[in-house]
């Protein structure tokens, strides 16, 4: 476990040291804060708009963190940074799990920071304290980083380095659109099974409807189970890979 946390630690240290991450967080806050000014768009539903924007932007921010994994793992593998780690008593599976955990933990931290900023703004604008269902909606988004990162790790193992980030981004988009795509039968085949149903995590304005803690917990558990499956597959593939 110590080995896994050593790798995870170096991963979140990398992300949290990038100044662009803080720039991203501040931009997200500014966008959320300015959402209520779009009265033309919101047609008097400023509150709903602000909630939707906060959930959407938090999702995007987390997705960006996740996608950075698809840059980092292949780069570490071909530049030789991974080789230095893997020639220590560190199994290949442990390396992948470390990368996975490091990225999930970073995504959770950043997701929480964005959500906290949103709640402060929401309170300042509407004077309403923390609404539980809204908190649950944000937590669901944050929990979605678990299966998303698992996909990113898996894709980093099976796809050529050049196209991994873009394919991962498309896959995440598909996964979040399952309820819309389900209308088209054939689309279901594409995402069914391989990609997780991230719509589980996606509440948007429906957030006003109470989902309940049990739902949040179940979605998180489901995400964890999917991750175990995806990481097992990744590790099986990684076992046979040549590393520079």
């Amino acid at each position, binding site marked *: 476990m*110590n*080995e896994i946390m*050593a*790798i995870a*630690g*170096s991963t979140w*240290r*990398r992300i949290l*040291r990038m100044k662009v991450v803080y720039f991203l967080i501040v931009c997200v806050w500014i966008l959320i804060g300015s959402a209520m000014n779009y009265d033309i768009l919101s047609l008097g539903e400023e509150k709903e708009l602000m909630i939707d924007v906060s959930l959407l932007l938090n999702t995007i921010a987390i997705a960006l963190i996740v996608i950075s994994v698809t840059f980092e793992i292949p780069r*570490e593998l071909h*530049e*030789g*940074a991974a*080789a*230095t*780690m*893997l*020639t*220590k*008593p*560190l*199994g290949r599976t442990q390396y992948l799990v470390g990368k996975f955990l490091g990225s999930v933990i970073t995504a959770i931290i950043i997701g929480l920071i964005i959500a906290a900023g949103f709640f402060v703004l929401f309170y300042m604008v509407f004077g309403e304290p923390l609404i539980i269902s809204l908190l649950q909606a944000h937590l669901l988004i944050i929990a979605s980083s678990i299966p998303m990162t698992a996909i990113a790790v898996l894709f980093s193992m099976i796809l050529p380095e050049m196209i991994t980030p873009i394919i991962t981004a498309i896959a995440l988009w598909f996964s979040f659109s399952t309820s819309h795509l389900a209308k088209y039968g054939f689309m279901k085949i594409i995402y069914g099974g391989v990609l997780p149903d991230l719509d589980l995590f996606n509440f948007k304005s429906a957030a006003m409807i109470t989902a309940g803690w049990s739902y949040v917990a179940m979605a998180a558990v489901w995400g964890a189970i999917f991750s175990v499956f995806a990481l097992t597959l990744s590790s099986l593939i990684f076992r*046979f890979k*040549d*590393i*520079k």
Partner: protein
Amino acid sequence: MEDFVIRTENLTKVYGHLFWKKKEASLEKLNLQIPRGSVFGFLGPNGAGKTTTIRLLMDLIKPSEGQAWVLGQPADNVKVKQRIGYLPDGPSFSTYLKAYEFLNICAKLLKIPSSERKKRIYEVLDIVKMTEHANSKLGGFSRGMIQRIGIAQSILNKPELLILDEPLVGLDPHGRQELKDIINEQKKAGTNVFFCSHILSDVEKICDHVGILSRGKMLCCGALTDLLSETGYRLVIKAGHDDIMQKFMPEASSSSKLSDGGWELVFKENVEVKKSIDELKREKPDAITYHPSKENLEDFFFRQIASTDKRI
């Protein structure tokens, strides 16, 4: 305890993957046995397969055929790595980490107890003369500085076996001398060292065993003293004595025409030849000069490589 620190059996690597394979093997049926307590120099021209062998030993790449053991364990054993130090060829480490942080992660992976980590990290930083850069980011380091950090991480765990891929590359003259000292220190401490290098004069000074690899095949391997004493003497025939040259040519292991028109023949230790040369020396003392020659590693290396090129 196994007598060999490194052992390979028909170790073969053909690069490529499921759908595409290179035509030629980068390493072909390598059988290597490196005894305990040796400093082994692994030599060979560019593309010979040295790095490939080392990566196979470190389980970074998988063999197409055959097997390798390090310190008595199969190369893919994760635990055995705790007793090994490895410096990759042209090391590259996560640029966003500071030198100390990087070594700290390595120390954690090597299971060095947290109470000893800091002390040990500063020890190795001192050995490679990088203490003052402990808190600088690796991204800002020069090639030689990175090489020094690479050496530091390889000796962090006081390894039983140290595998170095071209450790002298990128180091300044001081650095090279320091590295040679480090290797000597390691040897004194009982560490087995396996390294490859192109700087033959250094290899000759540091190593007691060498192996020469060419085009994926081992040409020769053994104790340096045995290999280099293989050649007995060098006979220089003055210009105009071609008859002598013709007489001795068939016995010579190598011959070359000198710029002044004379010849130089090299013989292996051979009683018959020695006798006739002694005779000749009495008859025509001016026609030849000869000296028992202990070849240096560089000559030996070129001769070995040249002989394969002829065979091909």
